[in-house]
């Protein structure tokens, strides 16, 4: 069975897009395909003007390195490196140096200036995830993908991370796609795309917690066309 069916989605540059949907709906698969981690069997994926369909492993890897940023639910920092080294890792892998001004700006936004020489084991979960955010932004990617970035955090630390993502869109013009099942997290986005059974089933602009919850209820209601298709 195909995980995604006839999905046609445009991500607007400089905007914060959230993808929501029940587990198994295909939202993670969608994000993986968009990010060049997984390949589509049919159709095409573009980053900017570049089609990534048909790229080989090396091309995809370089694409991810230079043009895409990632934030994971599990933070995924290297325990052997300090915060600063973790942040600079994508650039180091590419053999480049960070731009000092941009680096300062990102560090300032993420509020980690006094933690730069700490190792992940010496930091709280929220701090670790902010390091991961800085890592995603440091190489000035065209797009940042965040996979349940608040899933492992308490609400306070989660709010810090979401604030940071919001400001990086507003102040730095960053494009962000976030997969989440948390309606509160989704309210930080400019647009929410709802997903079920490998299809886009709804969309909201300027969402609020209430409109999001209503839409989710609608999707999950027995007898709805989507539920019928599933059973």
């Amino acid at each position, binding site marked *: 069975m195909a995980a995604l069916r006839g999905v046609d989605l445009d991500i607007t540059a400089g905007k914060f897009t959230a993808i929501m949907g029940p587990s198994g709906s295909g939202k993670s698969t969608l994000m993986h395909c968009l990010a060049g981690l997984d390949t589509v069997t049919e159709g095409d994926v573009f980053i900017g003007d570049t089609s990534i369909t048909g790229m080989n492993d090396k091309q995809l890897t370089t694409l991810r390195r230079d043009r895409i940023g990632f934030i994971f639910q599990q933070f995924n920092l290297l325990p*052997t490196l300090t915060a600063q080294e973790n942040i600079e890792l994508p650039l180091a892998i590419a053999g480049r140096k960070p731009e000092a001004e941009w680096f300062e700006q990102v560090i300032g936004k993420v509020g980690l200036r006094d933690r730069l020489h700490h190792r992940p084991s010496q930091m709280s979960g929220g701090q670790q995830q902010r390091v991961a955010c800085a890592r995603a932004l440091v190489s000035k990617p065209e797009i940042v993908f965040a996979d349940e970035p608040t899933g492992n955090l308490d609400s306070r630390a989660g709010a810090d991370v979401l604030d940071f993502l919001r400001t990086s869109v507003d102040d730095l013009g960053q494009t962000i796609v976030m997969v989440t099942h948390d309606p509160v997290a989704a309210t930080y986005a400019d647009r929410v795309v709802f997903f079920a059974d490998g299809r886009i089933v709804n969309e909201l602009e300027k969402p609020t917690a209430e409109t999001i919850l209503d839409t989710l209820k609608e999707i999950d209601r027995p007898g709805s066309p989507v539920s019928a298709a599933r059973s």
Partner: protein
Amino acid sequence: MFRATMKSLLARKLRLVLSALAIVLGVAFVSGALTMNSTLSEAFSSAYDTAYEDVGLQVTAEAPLADSVDAAAPKPLDAASVERVKGVSGVNDATGVVRVPGARLIGKDGKVPSGSSQRFGQAWSDKWGAPKLREGNAPRTADEIAINAALADKTGFKPGDRVGVLTLQPRREFTIAGVVEFDGRPDFVAGEQTVIFTEPVAQELMLGQAGAYSAVNVGLGSGADAAALKSDVSAALGQGFEVRTGQELADDQAGASKGLLTTITSLLLGFAAVAVLVGVFLIVNAFSVVVAQRTRELALMRALGASRKQVRRSVLLEAVLVGLVAWIVGAALGLLLGRVVAGVVADEDSGLAVGGFTVSGTALVVSFLLGVGVTTLAAAVPALRASRVPPIAAMREAAAVADDRPGRKQTIVGLVLLVIGAVLLALGIASEALPALFAGVLFAFVATAILIPAFTRPVVNVLAKPVTRSTAARLGWLNAVRHPRRTAATAVSLMIGVALVAGMSTVMRSLQHSATETVDNQLSADLSIINLSSGNVPPTVSPAALQQIRALPDVASVAGYASEYGEVNGNKQFLFSWDDQAAAAAIVGMEFTQGSANGSGAVMNESTAERLKLKAGDQIKLQMGRGDALTLPVTGVYKDTTVADRVTVPWSAAQAGFRTDQPSQAYIDLRDGASAEQVKPTVESLLAGSPEVEVQTKKDLVETVGNGIGTIILVVQLLLAVAMIIAILGVVNILVLSVLERTRELGMLRSIGMIRGQMRRMVTTESVLISLFGALTGVVLGTVLGVAVVKGLRGEGITALSVPWVLLVVYLVAALVVGWLAALGPGSRAAKLKVLEAIAYE
């Protein structure tokens, strides 16, 4: 609990297989050595059994030396003695035979054909052991001989050819009358070379006495009992005779042949020792990791009510099972190995029939104890650690429980052992006491193995300096120092092998250097006539040729030399003799402190005189291989020279008492201004009749002496090869584990843009750093200990210190290669991880 154990075993099979491989190799080497031994022993025994099956009893004259040596000539039985044996009641079928080692047929290339087996000279006899003619006739005249089929095959001679034969006398020419085989066998036993003369010629050439025999063979009448007849004959003959049954004879001969196997056996056992030693560390390491990984699982079992004992047993059971599998595989491999080596050895001594396997019970038992015992013992410490996991650990993060820092207690114990080792070494060096020296080496070894985690981080950090600029390499370096204990334990397996070989090479190289230096400094001969690869019977130099050499205008003096074991005042003693004592004194640089060498008595160096409690003017009782005991005065004592430090007896005594009256080596001093290189060909041409020896200039001789030890050094390097192969397994093991443990990290690295090549480079860097660290520690430890041993052995003739720098560098390069090889599998595994699965990995 058993089911849980099996499950955990299967889940970690790759890792356990890798660590068990070291044990498999150890078991294979041990059981291979033992199998080879039993297979060949069996073959030798059955060969000799059939060879002597016609002989009821054999009567020989009692050898004059109590501890008869292989090379000693048999004491001849004169005709009267043979008649006495014939006259003993109950004996009705007795024949005097001549069969003595030492007849060397000269091949078509002018050399004596090679072979580790005996070269017999025998009298033709129609009676006992009558050889069957394959071609030609029996020897009928004094200048005819028959040779055995093996010798004919080896040399390509056939009946009618004129050949030269060396015996007690210099080369004599004969015509081959026939080629023989024994009782339908293509050959006698163990590829021996046999020359058969007519009886009078054999008596003259092999025994040096007309009408004499080397033995009397007594046939056993039907129904007669060999043992009973033996005691009758012994009683009737009384003192001066030795009586052995055919069976005893076969056993004695087979026993002597089995001596050949010792070298190969000890080589294989040496490999086994290294494999097992390294294997112990691999097993400890593998099980420690398994226990650390299973911490939560073990804690859960404890929380569910499993006792400490049960937990401990479950780990030990795992070890026993691994050991069992290793034993079965290793023993099977060993049987094959043993059979193959036996076949090769037997082939070398053609004519020995190796029939099938001889699986000795010893091989199975010893290898079982080794395989299962060592594995279980090695797992004991991890098992104990497993049983100490508290139930509460089930609730904690697994990583928090695994303590990976070097323990302070461990460091203190290591330091204490190191100090003890250093003190023992210092003592050993100061007093040249071997036990202290070797205990010191052992302590230092163990101390280093214990201390190694404490200095893993700093040393690896330094080693990594040149590569930290590349991000992939830098990450590999950080991974290498992430678990210092684990890195250390892996490095130790490499360290042991390298340290062992570096140490042995240092000692051997110093020995080599000392030996060549001794020859170079102490032996003033310009030309030496020697044969370093002598068989059981010493080679001979024609005395007539020596006289001709003496007459050469460029030659100042020549000292012919012979040596043999004898007894001085009842002590077994290596005896030297020179045909020109004065020339010899000059050539080996004897400085007399008491008396002088006037040719009428024995002389010796100071240490020997001290050991035998003798001084100039004392009388000694001298017993040699032939003849009765002599009483001789000690006429002189000289300073130790290291080249001639034995008892030297007068030439006349040696000619009567040694096996042959010909010298076996000779040393030539040239007149001033003469060139050794120019005289050498002349000397060589004069020695055409002495094909067993060669002429060497001093430079040649130094090289020859060095080469002998060089071969041993090469064999030592083989040990390292074995240790390295096993160490690769250890490194692979730990890398596979690292890759598995860090799956999510690796997935993250791939997703943020690390390409496959960089992943490989990261793993390779970690691997190379671990290997290099192990090898470096080994090189340093081995060299330090080697130097200490050399210093401590200065009294044993190792006077020069020579560190094999080139070899040491080669070891480090080899470690680089090992690291690179070990990373191939795990590296590509890391590179080929599915990014999505890896990020989601728990």
